[in-house]
């Protein structure tokens, strides 16, 4: 086993590590997303991230902060628009998501030469991750996991019984916003590495896969992380041995695991 690992090229080890770090995050975050019926939120945020990338390139700002700021603005806009409670979350996302994508594509069209190709936007380039990006990812993952740990109990209260939590004096709106900001951070960091589709896939598919095997929210979150880890690792090895694109291979593996979990009997 040691020889196999030491024989692997550095870029591949970095990709494995990045996938693992991302899986740690997307497991619990994805669970909260599906519990709150906000499966499309990650997707929409990722579209907002494209707008961030485009604006960053246009205004010659550093990309990560630009993406993060756009994500935060998107989260705030979503939260303000959902305040009145007369539009379902998925409808609101169905409005905001294509809006962000459209604005992003318009901004991209204004660049002298397009320096971002749609393929890497959709699937990222996990095999091209640099040392610095990996460190940024590790730092963001630590912050995000710690924050999530602090918010966890409150988020569960909010998810199951929002009115009850609010009536008992819990700061539900601040909590909701904190969760959206957390998600914005993860998307800002993640989308550059693995792209929109893979990020959404790693958030939602493992959570849905883990549900059958979990009796508590915490177990489901951990299982979702393991499932994402397994999918990203299998996907990377598949891409190495069969020379197929890494991101799509990871998504395909996550989907295969989900199908397996549906097929077998209890």
């Amino acid at each position: 086993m040691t020889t196999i690992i030491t024989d692997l090229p550095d870029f591949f080890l970095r990709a494995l590590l990045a996938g693992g770090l991302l899986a740690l995050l997307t497991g619990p975050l994805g669970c909260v997303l599906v519990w709150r019926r906000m499966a499309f939120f990650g997707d929409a945020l990722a579209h907002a991230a494209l707008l961030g990338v485009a604006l960053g390139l246009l205004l010659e700002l550093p990309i990560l902060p630009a993406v993060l700021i756009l994500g935060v603005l998107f989260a705030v806009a979503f939260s303000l628009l959902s305040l009145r409670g007369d539009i379902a979350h998925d409808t609101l996302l169905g409005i905001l998501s294509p809006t962000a994508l459209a604005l992003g594509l318009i901004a991209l069209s204004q660049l002298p030469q397009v320096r971002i190709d749609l393929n890497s936007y959709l699937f990222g380039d996990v095999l091209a991750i640099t040392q610095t990006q990996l460190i940024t990812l590790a730092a963001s993952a630590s912050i995000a996991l710690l924050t999530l740990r602090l918010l966890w109990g409150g988020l569960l209260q909010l998810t199951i019984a929002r009115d009850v939590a609010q009536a008992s004096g819990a700061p539900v709106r601040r909590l909701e916003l904190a969760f959206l900001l957390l998600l914005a951070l993860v998307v800002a960091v993640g989308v550059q590495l693995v792209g929109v589709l893979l990020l959404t896939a790693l958030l939602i598919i493992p959570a849905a896969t883990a549900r059958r095997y979990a009796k508590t929210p915490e177990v489901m979150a951990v299982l979702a992380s393991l499932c994402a880890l397994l999918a990203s690792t299998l996907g990377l090895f598949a891409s190495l041995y069969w020379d197929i694109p890494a991101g799509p291979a990871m998504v395909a593996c996550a989907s295969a695991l989900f199908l397996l979990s549906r097929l077998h009997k209890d």
Partner: protein
Amino acid sequence: MTNAPLLQAADIAVTLDGRSVLHGITLAVQAGEIISIVGPNGAGKTTLLRALLGLTDLSAGRVTRAADLRIGYVPQKLNLDPLLPITAGRFLALWGDFIQAVASTGAEHLLNTPLAKLSGGELQRVLLARALIGQPQLLVLDEPAQALDLAGQRELYDTLAKVRDITGCAVLLVSHDLTLVMRKTDRVICLHGHICCQGKPEDVSRDPAYAALFGPHDTSFAVYHHHHDHDHHHH
């Protein structure tokens, strides 16, 4: 009951989607008081509770609470996604130490049951236990009797009366109509967008405003007598 009220609504109004749901509501909840709100469908009973709890914006008036008022709210139902695996016990633990609360509502046997698998009555019990965590000064229940049969309702009302007697908390609950009002109710508030009449249950049932809302009281009041073995004289 000369102390400052726990909760006070001064001339409040609520408008939802451009439609006036409540207007001119003034009421106060005193410590230890049991208040039943009755009214036909669409009378704004749930909206009134939500307004008092601060869950709905007011279009006029204001709600004042005693400082650091502890409220235990029992909603009609939860918004639980089937993808969220959680037992009743784990749910209760989210809100604090639940041992005592569970004992006083008889929900011990439900702790290991998934929240999503509870029947209406069982969920009610768990939600009441949750509301009792942290020893509230005011319990607010939205149609707690709806999912229960008559025996279940009697049991629930006994539990509420016992909790009130032991802890001295006030109870504010919504009931379908006067025939099913909790026997130990101190005050009935008859609601239909505004407060039509209020007072002791037997007084409200004779009030013309009540009769106008629910029709002649004789038939329904007979049911009330029969099931609750009420002891005042029928005129």
